[in-house]
């Protein structure tokens, strides 16, 4: 038997404890392979050994998820696994959720590669497929033989450190990463090919399904603006001269917070822009053009707003990935709330 040590997770049914009535089974850890693990072991034989099998009731896992995960993680550590396999769960919902959750936990805590397998419509797939590699299977155990053969194949390739190909060829559920590859034809020729197919009513496949956006509902209007603390936030890259925190001019890896206490006007001697997506000439001449501090101080003096918050927040919104931008937005929002700010002027460029 092979060098690599594998732990396998299955539910009470496949662990031959019993059916639905045994769903409350707490985790049991057995040496070696059990149930479908026996067939899996035969397929893995040359390269890997199933050193232990975790059997857990689906109901127990669903109702005591955290406790079950803790118990399993503790229990399998002593086996020093190199690899973790869960399922296949087919279309069993709670089993699928358990396979996803335990794989995620093992991956995050034991830092070893994991794989599970289930029917793509299993709720476990929706919840965990992004982070946990999931082989697509049929919807019932009738598909067991096929599932185990493909599961062992993928597992062996992962164990051998091979990089996996695309979901269509490898049979796993897409994990939502857009990867650059070289096409055979140029984009222009592909575009004309696709248009001619579309016009003739022939089948074609878009290369980029439209992404789905989060929608943010606007906050209600501020009741008494003359009492409100208002903050300035910009994605226009205004920073103290010299860019002390080295915000990148594109795809910024951070946002920063700088004091504007006792400053009434942003001058080109003290502030600049590091944004790489627009002509900086006018912003460099007068940074107020992007972060309108002078105008806000005026409004503050005239009593139009209660107070301008003592700090501004800044980042560069140039080719910046939405995932990063969302993270900065959430963090800035939390900080603003904690500091009693009730309104924000957000300037973009």
């Amino acid at each position, binding site marked *: 038997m092979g060098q690599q040590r594998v732990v396998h997770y299955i539910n009470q049914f496949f662990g031959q404890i019993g059916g639905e009535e045994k769903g409350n089974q707490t985790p049991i850890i057995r040496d070696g392979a059990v149930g479908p693990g026996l067939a899996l072991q035969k397929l893995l034989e040359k390269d890997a050994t199933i050193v232990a099998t975790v059997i857990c009731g689906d109901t127990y896992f669903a109702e005591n998820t955290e406790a079950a995960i803790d118990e399993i993680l503790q229990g399998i550590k002593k086996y020093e696994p190199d690899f973790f396999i869960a399922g296949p769960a087919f279309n069993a919902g709670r089993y699928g959720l358990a396979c996803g959750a335990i794989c995620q936990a093992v991956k995050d805590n034991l830092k070893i590669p994991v794989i599970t397998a289930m029917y793509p419509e299993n709720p476990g797939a929706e919840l965990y497929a992004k982070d946990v590699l999931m082989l697509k299977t049929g919807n019932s155990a009738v598909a067991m033989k096929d599932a185990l053969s493909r599961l062992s194949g993928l597992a062996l390739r992962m164990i051998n450190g091979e990089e996996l190909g695309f979901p269509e060829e490898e049979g796993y559920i897409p994990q939502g990463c857009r990867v650059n590859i070289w096409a055979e034809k140029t984009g*222009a020729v592909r575009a004309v090919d696709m248009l001619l197919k579309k016009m003739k009513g022939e089948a074609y496949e878009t290369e980029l399904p439209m992404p789905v956006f989060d929608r943010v509902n606007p906050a209600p209007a501020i009741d008494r603006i003359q009492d409100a603390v208002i903050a300035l936030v910009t994605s226009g890259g205004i920073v103290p001269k010299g860019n002390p925190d080295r915000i990148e001019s594109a795809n910024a890896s951070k946002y920063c917070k700088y004091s504007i206490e006792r400053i009434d006007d942003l001058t080109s001697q003290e502030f600049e822009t590091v944004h790489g997506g627009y002509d900086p000439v006018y912003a460099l001449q007068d940074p107020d053009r992007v972060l309108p501090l002078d105008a806000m101080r005026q409004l503050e003096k005239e009593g139009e707003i209660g107070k301008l918050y003592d700090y501004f927040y800044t980042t560069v919104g140039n080719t910046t990935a939405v995932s990063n931008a969302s993270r900065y937005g959430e963090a800035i929002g939390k900080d603003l709330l904690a500091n009693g700010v009730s309104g924000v002027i957000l300037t973009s460029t």
Partner: protein
Amino acid sequence: MQLEIGKFKITDVQFSDKTSIKNGVLYINKKELGDYLKEDSNIADVDFDLARPGESVRIIPIKDIVQPMYKVKGDGQVFPGFIGGFETVGEGVTHVLEDCAVATCGKIVNFQEGIIDMSGPGAAYNSFSKMNIVVPLIQPIPGLDKHTHEATVRLAGVKTASYLGKASQDLEPDEKEVFTYEGIVEAARLYPNLPRVAYVYMIQCQGLMHDTYVYGLNVKGILSTLISPTEVLDGAIISGNCAAPCHKNATIHHQNNPIILDLLRRHGKELCFAGVILTNESTMLADKKRGAFYSTKLARIIGAEGAVISEEGGGNPETDLMLNCKNLENAGIRTVLVTDEYAGRDGRSQGLADVTKEADAVITNGNGNQLVTLPPMERVIGSIESVAIITGGSSGSLHPDGSITVEIAGIMGSCCEMGYERLTTRLK
């Protein structure tokens, strides 16, 4: 209407005492060319460097790339409004130096110039690494403001390209390609059974050095208009666009617009090329709406049944792209969109800034956020320090051994939204 392109395959570039082309080698009289460029009083000095395919050379920061060409028959001259006068171009015979390009180099905006690697893994990301490149290094007069500096370098680029192209004027090309194009009534009479396809050609003219010039005119603020495909091939559209290097359309992209070339090559065979609709990407929503409604109007006037729409840049231009798509589809004109993505380094973010449900046929030219490490080169043309501030680079980009780690957004034309290259993405 017919344009014959006479192609000269350039296999090497050399400095010499006479500018000429012999056996595929382009010889350049550096002094003569330098004096010609220095006729512009904004240029204090100019030098030239050469880069050839496969050499261990990195050029950075590059503003624009232009292909050398010269008109030997027909009205007007290449790059009308800059080199040629205002006669319309697109007919007659134009000579083009293939596998050869002029890359203007030097700091202007400092953020939006790009990289070409002539060898190594970076060379895979654009076609320019396979070309013989002439690099004018332009030293502006002291105190020249950025906007005039940009205009000076832009003009120097097309002057160099036409000067080099002119060296071919009395020679016989290696290869000829003839593009034929009829007025829409004649085209419909000739090809009644072929699908009528238009090209909606989005260009970025937003002011503040995000501008494009047609016959010398900055077309910021124009209503969408028609232009013939062969005019574009004769250099009627010039880039003045300082946007992210990976997806700004450099002048060479316009001169060789691959969508126009493909539609012309299939015209009369697989499709009837109904026309090119040039439309601007403004920063203002009202302009975006006006432009997109008018593009659709023009598409209906010329009787298009389908349209390829290409984008330039990213972010707010996605709204123009989606409005053009939505309006055309609502008018019963089928569309394919050509774009690229900023999906994050892990490829997991939404890669577009705007969407519409009608956009069900989209070509992507890659994810600009992909991080690559490019090995050191023996020679750098320009200044390697610029990598710290160009789009795609950062203060940690340059490593002590001269290798650089950048997002491919910094590589010239890597995700060109005209579909000039072969890069695309797949879901993993």
